[in-house]
């Protein structure tokens, strides 16, 4: 029996499932969420051509296509362990145990937390939580909130919250501490902000991205960054203010915010309180690779890809026989890249089941990944291409070492 199990029904998993089914394989998709689509569901932004990227519609289209191809879905089913026995994968879930010869992990990404005093109060949530509440469940996270952490994702979600009629007091930095060091450093944040400049109507940020090519200019940029912030979609972005505490008796009542120096140090006496009924924490995304770690697959830390990623090649194979990966588990990028990777993984799996003459298709699919990456509207790390090259190098090194041993 030529079957494949795919864990994760995000854009990568769904596209891989469709590709496998089109090649005649029997496909099972497992996901712990109640709807298919993964993190694509919450996405909503205007594309350069003026059309809206509506994640719910995109997810529904992929899901419908998959169902029409006879793919079996097991939603609300959480995978908690995988094991290899006699060349077959055993996939343990909170419902039943599945078996397969080919396993694709498309588990996506998770958000890194940023611990700040008061962050366990009800009403404090990750910025992605607010996105899902608002766009998928159509419930506002609150009436007025503040977003702690300035990055690509939090800027995009701030706009989405505003669209839904939620008031955002501002986006501000977290207080500098050992854990928040990079995300609390105004220069580093300005650096990353310049890559979302194309999304911003504010002329300061737009102009800035052209001018601030070198470090000296960036230093100046932070120094001259207006004390009251600049506005993106009319939401103040505070590169010179940091949240030092979230307060409230039983639930969030507000935050204490203070001015900071260009190095991120709090200026004493500048503290003020802002009343809000919810707080979003945006610590950035990292690849969710726990299940791959259970298989003994080697991992590498690659900053440009968001953290530890399971070793893999361009064909989306891992060094572990019969184990494939696709989507954000291999590095943080947008949904279109994840889907393109899913197609590559699907073709590689079909090839492993003995199907011939897929070389050309596979080559085209790999090229499609690179093209999609080049034209991506949202880029989570400006050097993502270099991160991808690093993985490829690690892959080659891994096999050359193996050959030496043999």
């Amino acid at each position: 029996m030529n079957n494949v199990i795919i864990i994760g029904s995000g854009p990568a998993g769904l596209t891989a499932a469709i590709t496998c089914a089109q090649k005649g394989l029997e496909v099972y998709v497992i996901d712990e969420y109640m709807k298919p689509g993964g993190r694509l569901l919450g996405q909503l932004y205007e594309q350069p051509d003026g059309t809206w990227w509506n994640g719910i519609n995109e997810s529904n289209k992929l899901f419908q296509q998959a169902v029409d191809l006879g793919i079996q879905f097991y939603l609300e089913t959480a995978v908690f362990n995988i094991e290899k026995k006699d060349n077959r994968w055993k996939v343990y879930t909170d419902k039943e145990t599945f078996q397969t010869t080919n396993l694709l992990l498309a588990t996506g990404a998770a958000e890194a937390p940023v611990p700040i005093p008061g962050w366990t109060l009800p009403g404090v949530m990750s910025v992605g939580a607010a996105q899902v509440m608002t766009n998928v469940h159509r419930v506002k996270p609150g009436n007025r909130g503040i977003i702690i952490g300035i990055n690509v994702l939090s800027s995009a979600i701030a706009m989405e919250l505003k669209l839904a009629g939620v008031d955002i007091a501002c986006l501000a930095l977290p207080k500098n501490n050992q854990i928040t060091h990079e995300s609390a450093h105004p220069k580093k944040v300005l650096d990353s902000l310049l890559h979302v400049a194309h999304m911003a109507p504010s002329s300061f940020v737009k102009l800035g991205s052209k001018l601030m090519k070198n470090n000296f200019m960036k230093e100046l940029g932070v120094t001259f960054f207006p004390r009251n912030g600049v506005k993106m979609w009319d939401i103040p972005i505070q590169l010179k203010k940091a949240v030092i505490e979230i307060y409230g008796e039983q639930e969030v009542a507000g935050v204490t915010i203070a001015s900071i120096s260009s190095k991120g140090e709090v200026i004493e006496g500048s503290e003020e309180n802002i009343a809000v009924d919810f707080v979003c924490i945006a610590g950035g995304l990292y690849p969710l690779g726990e299940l791959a770690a259970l298989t003994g697959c080697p991992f590498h830390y690659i900053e440009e890809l968001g953290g530890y990623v399971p070793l893999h090649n361009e064909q989306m194979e891992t060094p572990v026989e019969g184990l494939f990966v696709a989507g954000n588990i291999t590095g943080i990028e947008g949904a279109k890249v994840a889907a393109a990777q899913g197609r590559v993984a699907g073709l590689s799996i079909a090839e492993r089941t003995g199907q011939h003459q897929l070389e050309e298709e596979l080559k085209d699919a790999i090229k499609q990944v690179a093209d999609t990456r080049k034209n991506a509207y949202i880029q989570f790390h400006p050097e993502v291409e270099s991160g991808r090259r690093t993985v490829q190098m690690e892959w080659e090194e891994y096999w050359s070492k193996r050959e030496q041993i043999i």
Partner: protein
Amino acid sequence: MKLRVTNHPILGNPEKKKAVTFTFNDKQYTGYEDESLAAALLANEIRTLRHHEESGSPRGIYCNIGHCFECRVSINGKQGVRACLTPLKENMIVESHGKLPTPVRDWRSSDE
């Protein structure tokens, strides 16, 4: 139901869904069938889902997508279920977890 997003400029009106009743800590509420329990509670302006087992501090949702387990509640008697991953059903009985006795800690605390 102040927090429901009704007419969204891009997404339009939400699809029509069946209203269902459920209880949370013995009080009755309404929500929509198959929406997430976490969303139904928030729409009723309930943010505190439990109190921490050891410290007793109030907790609510954090990630909303199943990663952090902050939203665990008991549903129809089953403990430790994630509210953000659970579709709401008619007559669901939802209860908060509370602080648990920690005899070992209590015994030692006088020395700390």
